[in-house]
Protein backbone atom coordinates (compact mmCIF):
# COMPACT_ATOMS: atom_id res chain seq x y z
CA UNK A 1 0.00 0.00 0.00
CA UNK A 2 1.62 3.25 -1.13
CA UNK A 3 1.63 6.62 0.53
CA UNK A 4 -1.68 8.27 1.29
CA UNK A 5 -2.41 10.84 -1.41
CA UNK A 6 -5.05 13.47 -2.05
CA UNK A 7 -7.36 11.06 -3.85
CA UNK A 8 -7.70 8.89 -0.75
CA UNK A 9 -9.04 11.77 1.27
CA UNK A 10 -11.32 12.86 -1.55
CA UNK A 11 -12.77 9.35 -1.81
CA UNK A 12 -13.55 9.36 1.91
CA UNK A 13 -15.10 12.78 1.54
CA UNK A 14 -17.21 11.59 -1.39
CA UNK A 15 -18.43 8.61 0.63
CA UNK A 16 -19.41 10.87 3.53
CA UNK A 17 -21.23 13.18 1.12
CA UNK A 18 -23.21 10.35 -0.47
CA UNK A 19 -24.06 8.87 2.91
CA UNK A 20 -25.15 12.26 4.22
CA UNK A 21 -27.43 12.82 1.25
CA UNK A 22 -28.91 9.34 1.67
CA UNK A 23 -29.54 10.12 5.33
CA UNK A 24 -31.23 13.42 4.46
CA UNK A 25 -33.49 11.77 1.90
CA UNK A 26 -34.49 8.59 3.70
CA UNK A 27 -35.01 9.68 7.28
CA UNK A 28 -38.50 10.58 8.49
CA UNK A 29 -37.24 11.94 11.78
CA UNK A 30 -36.44 15.66 11.48
CA UNK A 31 -33.36 15.31 13.69
CA UNK A 32 -32.18 12.45 11.47
CA UNK A 33 -32.27 14.87 8.56
CA UNK A 34 -30.13 17.28 10.59
CA UNK A 35 -27.57 14.52 11.12
CA UNK A 36 -27.38 14.04 7.36
CA UNK A 37 -26.68 17.74 6.96
CA UNK A 38 -23.82 17.48 9.48
CA UNK A 39 -22.30 14.59 7.52
CA UNK A 40 -22.40 16.58 4.28
CA UNK A 41 -20.76 19.60 5.92
CA UNK A 42 -18.04 17.40 7.35
CA UNK A 43 -17.38 15.91 3.94
CA UNK A 44 -16.82 19.39 2.49
CA UNK A 45 -14.64 20.34 5.46
CA UNK A 46 -12.43 17.26 5.05
CA UNK A 47 -12.11 18.01 1.35
CA UNK A 48 -10.92 21.55 2.03
CA UNK A 49 -8.32 20.50 4.59
CA UNK A 50 -6.98 17.72 2.35
CA UNK A 51 -6.66 20.16 -0.55
CA UNK A 52 -4.98 22.57 1.82
CA UNK A 53 -2.28 20.07 2.59
CA UNK A 54 -1.68 18.50 -0.82
CA UNK A 55 -2.05 21.44 -3.21
CA UNK A 56 -1.06 25.09 -3.20
CA UNK A 57 -4.25 26.02 -1.36
CA UNK A 58 -2.31 25.91 1.89
CA UNK A 59 -3.72 27.82 4.82
CA UNK A 60 -6.91 28.81 2.98
CA UNK A 61 -8.26 25.28 3.20
CA UNK A 62 -7.97 25.20 6.97
CA UNK A 63 -9.47 28.67 7.38
CA UNK A 64 -12.44 27.76 5.22
CA UNK A 65 -12.97 24.58 7.25
CA UNK A 66 -12.95 26.71 10.39
CA UNK A 67 -15.69 28.88 8.91
CA UNK A 68 -17.63 25.76 7.89
CA UNK A 69 -17.53 24.48 11.48
CA UNK A 70 -18.78 27.81 12.86
CA UNK A 71 -21.58 28.11 10.31
CA UNK A 72 -22.65 24.49 10.82
CA UNK A 73 -22.99 25.08 14.56
CA UNK A 74 -25.10 28.19 13.94
CA UNK A 75 -27.27 26.36 11.43
CA UNK A 76 -27.79 23.44 13.82
CA UNK A 77 -29.08 25.85 16.47
CA UNK A 78 -31.62 27.41 14.09
CA UNK A 79 -32.66 24.04 12.70
CA UNK A 80 -33.35 22.75 16.19
CA UNK A 81 -35.44 25.82 16.96
CA UNK A 82 -37.44 25.00 13.82
CA UNK A 83 -37.81 21.37 14.95
CA UNK A 84 -39.08 22.53 18.34
CA UNK A 85 -41.66 24.74 16.65
CA UNK A 86 -42.67 21.85 14.40
CA UNK A 87 -43.12 19.66 17.45
CA UNK A 88 -45.20 22.33 19.11
CA UNK A 89 -47.50 22.46 16.12
CA UNK A 90 -47.77 18.79 15.17
CA UNK A 91 -46.86 16.99 18.45
CA UNK A 92 -44.52 14.73 16.42
CA UNK A 93 -41.22 15.14 14.62
CA UNK A 94 -42.21 12.86 11.80
CA UNK A 95 -41.75 15.06 8.75
CA UNK A 96 -44.20 12.99 6.73
CA UNK A 97 -47.03 14.10 8.99
CA UNK A 98 -46.49 17.80 8.31
CA UNK A 99 -48.75 17.86 5.30
CA UNK A 100 -51.13 20.68 6.13
CA UNK A 101 -50.16 24.28 5.48
CA UNK A 102 -52.63 25.71 7.98
CA UNK A 103 -50.68 26.51 11.15
Amino acid at each position, binding site marked *: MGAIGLHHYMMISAFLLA*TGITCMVTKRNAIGILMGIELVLNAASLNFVALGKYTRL*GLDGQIFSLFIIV*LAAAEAAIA*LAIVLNYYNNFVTIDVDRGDELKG
Partner: protein
Amino acid sequence: MTIDALLFWIFAALACGGALGVVLASRIVRMAFWLVVSLGSVAALFFLLNAEFLGAAQLLIYVGGTIVILVFGVMLTAGGAAPRLKATPGESLLCIAVAASLFGLCLFTVGSVDWVEVARRQGSISHENRPTAGTVGHGTHALGSALVGFRPAVVTTNKDGQPVKQVVLQTGYLLPFEIISVHLLVVLLGAAYLARPKQRREAGAIAASSGGPA
Protein backbone atom coordinates in the same frame (compact mmCIF):
# COMPACT_ATOMS: atom_id res chain seq x y z
CA MET B 1 2.71 0.12 5.58
CA THR B 2 3.84 3.10 7.61
CA ILE B 3 2.11 4.10 10.80
CA ASP B 4 0.75 7.15 8.99
CA ALA B 5 -1.01 5.02 6.38
CA LEU B 6 -2.23 2.55 8.99
CA LEU B 7 -3.78 5.32 11.09
CA PHE B 8 -5.38 6.81 7.98
CA TRP B 9 -7.04 3.52 7.06
CA ILE B 10 -8.26 2.91 10.61
CA PHE B 11 -9.85 6.35 10.92
CA ALA B 12 -11.18 6.31 7.36
CA ALA B 13 -12.90 2.97 8.07
CA LEU B 14 -14.33 4.38 11.31
CA ALA B 15 -15.59 7.54 9.57
CA CYS B 16 -17.27 5.63 6.76
CA GLY B 17 -18.59 2.95 9.11
CA GLY B 18 -20.02 5.61 11.39
CA ALA B 19 -21.70 7.34 8.46
CA LEU B 20 -23.23 4.02 7.37
CA GLY B 21 -24.36 3.48 10.94
CA VAL B 22 -26.17 6.81 10.90
CA VAL B 23 -28.11 5.81 7.81
CA LEU B 24 -28.86 2.24 8.86
CA ALA B 25 -29.74 2.82 12.51
CA SER B 26 -33.41 2.84 13.32
CA ARG B 27 -33.49 4.61 16.65
CA ILE B 28 -32.55 8.27 16.84
CA VAL B 29 -30.20 8.01 19.83
CA ARG B 30 -28.20 5.27 18.11
CA MET B 31 -27.92 7.50 15.08
CA ALA B 32 -26.50 10.21 17.33
CA PHE B 33 -23.93 7.71 18.67
CA TRP B 34 -22.79 6.69 15.18
CA LEU B 35 -22.56 10.35 14.24
CA VAL B 36 -20.23 10.92 17.21
CA VAL B 37 -18.03 8.04 15.95
CA SER B 38 -17.97 9.46 12.44
CA LEU B 39 -17.21 13.05 13.44
CA GLY B 40 -14.54 11.97 15.92
CA SER B 41 -12.82 9.98 13.16
CA VAL B 42 -12.96 13.00 10.86
CA ALA B 43 -11.26 15.00 13.65
CA ALA B 44 -8.54 12.33 13.77
CA LEU B 45 -8.16 12.64 9.98
CA PHE B 46 -7.70 16.40 10.47
CA PHE B 47 -4.86 15.65 12.89
CA LEU B 48 -3.29 13.39 10.26
CA LEU B 49 -3.52 16.26 7.73
CA ASN B 50 -1.44 18.52 10.03
CA ALA B 51 -4.49 20.63 10.87
CA GLU B 52 -4.18 20.36 14.64
CA PHE B 53 -6.23 23.40 15.56
CA LEU B 54 -8.99 22.31 13.23
CA GLY B 55 -9.05 18.80 14.69
CA ALA B 56 -9.32 20.20 18.20
CA ALA B 57 -12.01 22.68 17.10
CA GLN B 58 -13.93 19.86 15.41
CA LEU B 59 -13.90 17.80 18.61
CA LEU B 60 -14.90 20.74 20.77
CA ILE B 61 -17.56 22.32 18.58
CA TYR B 62 -18.97 19.41 16.62
CA VAL B 63 -18.75 16.48 18.98
CA GLY B 64 -19.02 18.49 22.18
CA GLY B 65 -21.54 21.04 20.95
CA THR B 66 -23.57 20.11 17.94
CA ILE B 67 -24.13 16.47 18.88
CA VAL B 68 -25.10 17.49 22.40
CA ILE B 69 -27.60 19.96 21.02
CA LEU B 70 -29.00 17.26 18.71
CA VAL B 71 -29.45 14.92 21.67
CA PHE B 72 -31.16 17.77 23.55
CA GLY B 73 -33.52 18.07 20.59
CA VAL B 74 -34.23 14.35 20.74
CA MET B 75 -34.95 14.51 24.45
CA LEU B 76 -37.17 17.59 24.16
CA THR B 77 -39.29 16.09 21.40
CA ALA B 78 -39.53 12.49 22.57
CA GLY B 79 -42.94 11.10 23.30
CA GLY B 80 -43.35 8.84 26.28
CA ALA B 81 -41.07 7.97 29.16
CA ALA B 82 -37.69 6.35 28.54
CA PRO B 83 -37.12 2.95 30.24
CA ARG B 84 -34.81 2.88 33.24
CA LEU B 85 -31.63 1.02 32.44
CA LYS B 86 -28.93 -0.32 34.72
CA ALA B 87 -25.64 -1.80 33.51
CA THR B 88 -25.09 -5.51 34.19
CA PRO B 89 -22.14 -6.48 36.43
CA GLY B 90 -20.31 -7.92 33.41
CA GLU B 91 -20.58 -4.62 31.56
CA SER B 92 -19.43 -2.67 34.62
CA LEU B 93 -16.37 -4.92 34.93
CA LEU B 94 -15.50 -4.46 31.26
CA CYS B 95 -15.86 -0.69 31.56
CA ILE B 96 -13.63 -0.59 34.64
CA ALA B 97 -11.01 -2.67 32.81
CA VAL B 98 -11.06 -0.34 29.78
CA ALA B 99 -10.81 2.78 31.95
CA ALA B 100 -7.97 1.32 33.99
CA SER B 101 -6.00 0.36 30.89
CA LEU B 102 -6.49 3.84 29.40
CA PHE B 103 -5.26 5.38 32.65
CA GLY B 104 -2.26 3.04 32.63
CA LEU B 105 -1.45 4.00 29.04
CA CYS B 106 -1.56 7.71 29.88
CA LEU B 107 0.66 7.23 32.94
CA PHE B 108 3.16 5.19 30.92
CA THR B 109 3.31 7.80 28.15
CA VAL B 110 3.73 10.72 30.52
CA GLY B 111 6.33 8.88 32.58
CA SER B 112 8.51 7.93 29.62
CA VAL B 113 9.21 11.53 28.54
CA ASP B 114 12.22 13.45 29.81
CA TRP B 115 10.41 16.68 30.76
CA VAL B 116 13.58 18.55 31.77
CA GLU B 117 15.03 18.04 28.28
CA VAL B 118 11.74 19.09 26.65
CA ALA B 119 11.68 22.35 28.65
CA ARG B 120 15.29 23.03 27.75
CA ARG B 121 14.63 22.54 24.05
CA GLN B 122 11.43 24.59 24.00
CA GLY B 123 13.25 27.53 25.54
CA SER B 124 15.70 27.69 22.65
CA ILE B 125 13.18 27.78 19.77
CA SER B 126 12.55 31.26 18.37
CA HIS B 127 8.93 32.23 17.84
CA GLU B 128 9.07 33.20 14.21
CA ASN B 129 5.93 33.35 12.13
CA ARG B 130 5.94 30.47 9.67
CA PRO B 131 3.88 31.47 6.65
CA THR B 132 2.80 28.08 5.37
CA ALA B 133 0.38 25.52 6.69
CA GLY B 134 0.84 21.82 6.11
CA THR B 135 3.94 21.70 8.26
CA VAL B 136 3.75 20.05 11.61
CA GLY B 137 2.95 22.23 14.57
CA HIS B 138 2.81 25.68 12.98
CA GLY B 139 -0.69 25.72 11.58
CA THR B 140 -2.26 27.22 14.68
CA HIS B 141 0.03 30.24 14.72
CA ALA B 142 -0.52 30.90 11.02
CA LEU B 143 -4.30 30.45 11.41
CA GLY B 144 -4.50 32.91 14.30
CA SER B 145 -2.39 35.51 12.51
CA ALA B 146 -4.42 35.17 9.33
CA LEU B 147 -7.68 35.61 11.19
CA VAL B 148 -6.59 39.00 12.56
CA GLY B 149 -5.38 40.09 9.14
CA PHE B 150 -1.66 39.35 9.26
CA ARG B 151 -0.82 36.83 6.59
CA PRO B 152 2.78 36.61 5.33
CA ALA B 153 3.41 34.48 2.26
CA VAL B 154 6.58 33.44 0.50
CA VAL B 155 6.48 34.33 -3.21
CA THR B 156 9.13 33.69 -5.81
CA THR B 157 9.74 36.71 -8.02
CA ASN B 158 12.10 37.07 -10.95
CA LYS B 159 14.72 39.69 -10.21
CA ASP B 160 17.37 40.11 -12.93
CA GLY B 161 16.52 36.70 -14.34
CA GLN B 162 17.01 34.85 -11.05
CA PRO B 163 14.15 33.57 -8.90
CA VAL B 164 14.19 35.32 -5.55
CA LYS B 165 12.04 34.27 -2.64
CA GLN B 166 10.64 37.07 -0.57
CA VAL B 167 8.02 37.38 2.10
CA VAL B 168 5.07 39.57 1.17
CA LEU B 169 2.02 40.49 3.19
CA GLN B 170 -1.23 39.09 1.79
CA THR B 171 -4.69 40.12 2.90
CA GLY B 172 -5.80 38.14 5.90
CA TYR B 173 -9.24 37.01 6.95
CA LEU B 174 -10.16 39.82 9.28
CA LEU B 175 -13.34 40.83 7.45
CA PRO B 176 -14.81 37.28 7.25
CA PHE B 177 -13.91 36.86 10.91
CA GLU B 178 -15.89 39.94 11.91
CA ILE B 179 -18.78 38.97 9.65
CA ILE B 180 -18.94 35.54 11.21
CA SER B 181 -18.89 36.98 14.72
CA VAL B 182 -21.90 39.17 13.97
CA HIS B 183 -23.54 36.26 12.15
CA LEU B 184 -23.19 34.03 15.20
CA LEU B 185 -24.72 36.69 17.43
CA VAL B 186 -27.68 37.16 15.11
CA VAL B 187 -28.22 33.42 14.70
CA LEU B 188 -28.16 32.71 18.40
CA LEU B 189 -30.57 35.54 19.16
CA GLY B 190 -32.85 34.26 16.41
CA ALA B 191 -32.70 30.69 17.71
CA ALA B 192 -33.44 31.83 21.25
CA TYR B 193 -36.45 33.79 20.01
CA LEU B 194 -37.72 30.98 17.79
CA ALA B 195 -37.46 28.40 20.57
CA ARG B 196 -39.21 30.47 23.23
CA PRO B 197 -41.94 28.69 25.21
CA LYS B 198 -45.23 28.72 23.36
CA GLN B 199 -48.63 27.16 23.57
CA ARG B 200 -48.46 23.53 22.50
CA ARG B 201 -51.32 22.14 20.48
CA GLU B 202 -52.99 19.17 22.15
CA ALA B 203 -53.05 15.81 20.41
CA GLY B 204 -56.86 15.71 20.44
CA ALA B 205 -57.07 19.04 18.62
CA ILE B 206 -54.79 17.66 15.86
CA ALA B 207 -56.99 14.60 15.32
CA ALA B 208 -60.13 16.74 15.23
CA SER B 209 -58.70 19.22 12.76
CA SER B 210 -57.24 16.56 10.41
CA GLY B 211 -60.41 14.42 10.53
CA GLY B 212 -62.52 17.45 9.51
CA PRO B 213 -62.75 18.90 6.00
CA ALA B 214 -59.65 17.27 4.45
